[in-house]
């Protein structure tokens, strides 16, 4: 078979000057965030794993041991470890949570700077999100290694990064909006923390979807959990790494539609409003 050397793939990637500038800024802000996270710790990257692993341990103790929650079996049926079921959902949740919360901080970090020099402000948030995704990849790697030890791995793992990327886009979309509103009304960051802590229990992370009652206190609880956009993203991640199933195409489509839609709308809103914020005294 002839190889076409002049095809588009043979040419080096060529970006417009504006896109190149944007890419450089994203990289700078991502490096800055990564350094800020690990500079002061001798343990470096390992230290960053302590928090998610502690969360897994604590929730496993409370829900798995004390409440005796049971997890569905993994693909090979060898393990019904609640901690791993939890971990596979938590990996995605952490990406989402850290980016939504971080967006407001990343925005504040550059708002003074933006009053003195022009640059596309969204690059600070995208850079922060990229750093978060990198850090979460390490968590995901730990999860995959544990699964490998239990001989519970398959090609479906390729969907784990897809789920994490979709969580990133979804979170960035919300983060763009939160950062803009928070720049004006400072209590939004506190409200966001509250909403996120409620949100954590609105997705099946510490419980399985099948134990949710249809109705409780007059509310269609099962439906609410199901409609939560993150539910689909977490379902994709769980299929990928826990059940080793090809993710349900409906889940994947729903997750992608929400993630891309939220990102596009959030970015458009951010671009419209960020100029006005840099003009405030």
């Amino acid at each position, binding site marked *: 078979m002839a190889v076409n050397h002049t095809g588009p793939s043979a040419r080096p990637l060529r970006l417009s000057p504006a896109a190149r500038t944007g890419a450089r800024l994203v990289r700078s802000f991502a490096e800055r965030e990564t350094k800020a996270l690990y500079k002061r710790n001798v343990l470096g990257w390992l230290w960053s794993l302590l928090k998610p692993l502690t969360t897994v341990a604590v929730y496993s103790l409370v829900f798995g041991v004390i409440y005796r929650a049971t997890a569905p079996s993994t693909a090979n049926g060898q393990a019904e470890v609640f901690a791993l079921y939890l971990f596979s959902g938590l990996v995605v949740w952490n990406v989402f949570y850290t980016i939504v919360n971080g967006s407001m901080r990343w925005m504040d970090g*550059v708002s003074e700077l933006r009053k*003195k020099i*022009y640059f596309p402000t969204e690059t600070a948030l995208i850079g922060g999100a990229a750093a978060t995704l990198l850090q979460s990849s390490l968590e995901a790697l730990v999860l995959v290694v544990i699964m490998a030890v239990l001989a519970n791995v398959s090609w479906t793992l390729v969907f784990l990064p897809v789920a994490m990327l979709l969580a990133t886009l979804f979170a960035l979309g919300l983060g763009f909006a939160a950062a803009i509103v928070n720049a004006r009304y400072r209590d939004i960051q506190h409200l966001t923390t509250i909403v996120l802590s409620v949100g954590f229990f609105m997705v099946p992370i510490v419980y399985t979807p099948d134990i949710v009652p249809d109705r409780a206190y007059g509310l269609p609880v099962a439906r609410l959990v199901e409609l939560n956009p993150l539910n689909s993203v977490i379902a994709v991640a769980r299929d990928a790494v826990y059940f080793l199933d090809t993710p349900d195409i409906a889940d994947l489509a729903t997750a992608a539609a929400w993630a891309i839609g939220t990102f596009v709308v959030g970015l458009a809103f951010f671009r419209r409003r960020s100029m006005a914020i840099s003009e405030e005294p």
Partner: protein
Amino acid sequence: MSEPTRASVQAVEVSDVSKRFRLELNRPTSVKEAVLSFGRRDVRHLWALRDVSLTIDKGSFFGLVGHNGSGKSTLLRLMAGIHRPTEGRITARGRVSALLELGSGFHPELTGRENVFLNGAMLGLGRRQMAAAMDSIIDFSGVGDQIDAPVKIYSSGMYMRLGFSVAVNVEPEILLVDEVIAVGDEEFQQRCLQHMESLRSGGTTIVLVSHDTGLVRELCDRVGWLDGGHLRSVGDPDEVVDAYLVHATEPT
């Protein structure tokens, strides 16, 4: 439509530019306050610039004079792209490097060196280009070993010197300078002026905002005088500065 030959010699084109700022007394800073002050908000608008039109030729040295609050800094910010005009159009042809107020665009948590790269990225320059310019930037600023310390611990003099050093060492096509040279010591001021002269002879367009009318007369090819957001006059430095000084010393 503009002819390409004429357009190519103008580095900055300001056409009928007006800029309005929204000012709000006691603006609510939280949702709680916003709800409580609903319907009782005191919003005012301030026109910082009104129908300003001017052009700055490529390779020239342009000065802006005027009282505090006359709109000089606003006009410079519009040229730098930090603000957008409310009305009218502003065009800057070429890479704009701006040194506004004290300190320019540094991120306080980053080291001097990291900030140099970040500034470079904001101006559209890659790491390699900035690495090549790094030695002359450090040299010129006199910051020395402190280049690897976070800029938040810099003295205001160091901050300003590094800012200036970056702004002039990135081969700007248009350099915007707002009053900063007055902050450094005599020796640094002299070096700044020399460097601006050499940039100008290399084809860089320079726009300087200054209260030092002597400096403006000495350096500038043309001067604009802003008064209350209006461009009172623009032209020969001596004529414009004289008119401004006569106006400034008149009892009001």
